[in-house]
């Protein structure tokens, strides 16, 4: 089971692992962009109740939220080239990273679209009517009234999704991507100091998660600075009695309950 434990290895592994931090963050960044884009595209038919498209969006969301990310990774990496071969598109030379970002983008997109849909529908209908009564156009009503309130719900969920995505990227090594986890495995097998590499790896993830959380919390405060605590608008959900807000957040599953 490898060499005896030596704490100094942890410190020597830290900088070595950090060389691949860029790859990990690259996957997170691009997947997020793809996810937000997909999220909007999928949320719109459900918000506007477009027939057929609405049902397709529902199936898409259900599939990506109802199956493990690891299975999705394999399905796209091994399956997509086979499917594309049928229509004579050759993707054998496409970099692995493309498939990884595509999968994470689609996966995160399903969660994002639910986040977008729930936060928009959670805004009280009366708010829009009041905006119309005050003489706003529908664009104004959306941008000035609905959006700021929807953000209040979306931002904390978004922050959770980003951190969940970061943790999920550790699975990209299964396709041979050299991100931090892949690098850690290589370092472990070369040096036979497995436990030290994984301690170093966990520490780096912990620091990034913590930093992301703090950054997103600051963003949340900045976005919600117009919100007065306990204003009537904040009391859309009575948190205390019926727990509808808690249930809604739970159904969005932003933390994904631990697993992938």
């Amino acid at each position, binding site marked *: *089971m*490898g060499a005896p*434990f030596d704490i100094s290895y942890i410190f020597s592994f830290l900088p070595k692992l950090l060389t691949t931090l860029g790859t990990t963050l690259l996957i997170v960044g691009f997947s997020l962009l793809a996810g937000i884009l997909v999220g909007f595209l999928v949320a719109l038919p459900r918000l506007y109740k477009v027939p057929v498209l609405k049902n397709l969006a529902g199936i898409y969301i*259900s*599939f990506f*939220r*109802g*199956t*493990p*990310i*690891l*299975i*999705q990774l*394999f*399905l796209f990496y*091994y*399956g*997509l080239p*086979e*499917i594309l*071969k*049928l229509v004579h598109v050759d993707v054998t030379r496409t970099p692995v990273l493309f498939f990884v970002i595509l999968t994470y983008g689609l996966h995160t997109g399903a969660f994002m679209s639910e986040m977008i849909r729930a936060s928009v529908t959670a805004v009280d209908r009366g708010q829009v009517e009041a905006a119309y009564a005050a003489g706003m156009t529908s664009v104004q009503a959306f941008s000035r009234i609905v959006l700021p309130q929807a953000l209040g719900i979306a931002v904390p969920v978004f922050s959770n999704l980003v*951190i969940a995505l970061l*943790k*999920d990227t*550790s*699975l990209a090594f299964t396709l041979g991507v050299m991100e931090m*986890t892949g690098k850690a495995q290589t370092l*472990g097998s070369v040096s036979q100091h*497995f*436990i030290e590499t*994984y*301690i170093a*790896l*966990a520490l780096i*993830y*912990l620091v990034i*998660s*913590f930093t992301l959380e703090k950054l997103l919390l600051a963003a949340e405060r900045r976005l919600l600075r117009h919100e007065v605590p306990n204003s009537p608008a904040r009391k859309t959900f009575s948190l*205390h009695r019926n*727990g509808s807000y*808690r*249930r809604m957040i*739970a*159904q969005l*599953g932003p*933390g*994904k*309950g*631990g*697993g*992938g």
Partner: protein
Amino acid sequence: MKLDPSFIWTAFVQILSAIPTTLYITLVSVSAGFIIGIAVALIRIYKVPFLHPLATGYVTFIRGTPMLTHLLLIYFGLPMIIDGLAAHFGWGFRSVSIPMIGFAYIAFSITAGAYMSEVVRSGLLAVDRGQMEAAHSVGMTTAQSLRRIVFPQALAAGLPNLSNSVIGMLHGSTLAFTVSVVDINAQAQIVASTNWKFFEAYLAAALIFWGLTFLIERATGLIEKRINLYNRGGVL
């Protein structure tokens, strides 16, 4: 290399044999995690001296690191600790006798424990303070009022989160293949590589997981209806 729709069914049937392994891992990690979760949540709510910072550190560490690292740390770290102690105290037990699935059980229980503690904590905090006072006023001890009054209500409040955690652990159990446990995912890999039909095999595995997730969601829905009966408004 042709797509073979009929093979999806063949793969499906071959993967079925691995479902129990996946369900065992999920069940063990959720049950053990729930017990750890209750303990950790109570320690954090009642701010038990000395244990409180430990509990907070545990939850922060687990929630801030990927589930895969927990598994790898246990897989490589636990034998080191066990064999070190065994050599020191002269036990006959060696880590070699731990089955592979044992590492998955232990690691995922530790993972689930941290997430469950948050589920339990938010559930408990959702229960009205007055419930506890009312229980005290009719002469129950704190332990009694927790068990009879607060926990049932906390369970009802935390059910959606609980269901999420169960689904998360079900999906997370796919990581067990890294320590050579043959769960649904590993079985799909075997079926895929022996027949050289990857897409069909993984699609079958995805469909099985989709079905299991659907069942968990349905079951939660039914339990929720039943458990929230006390809470209904109106006459009927």
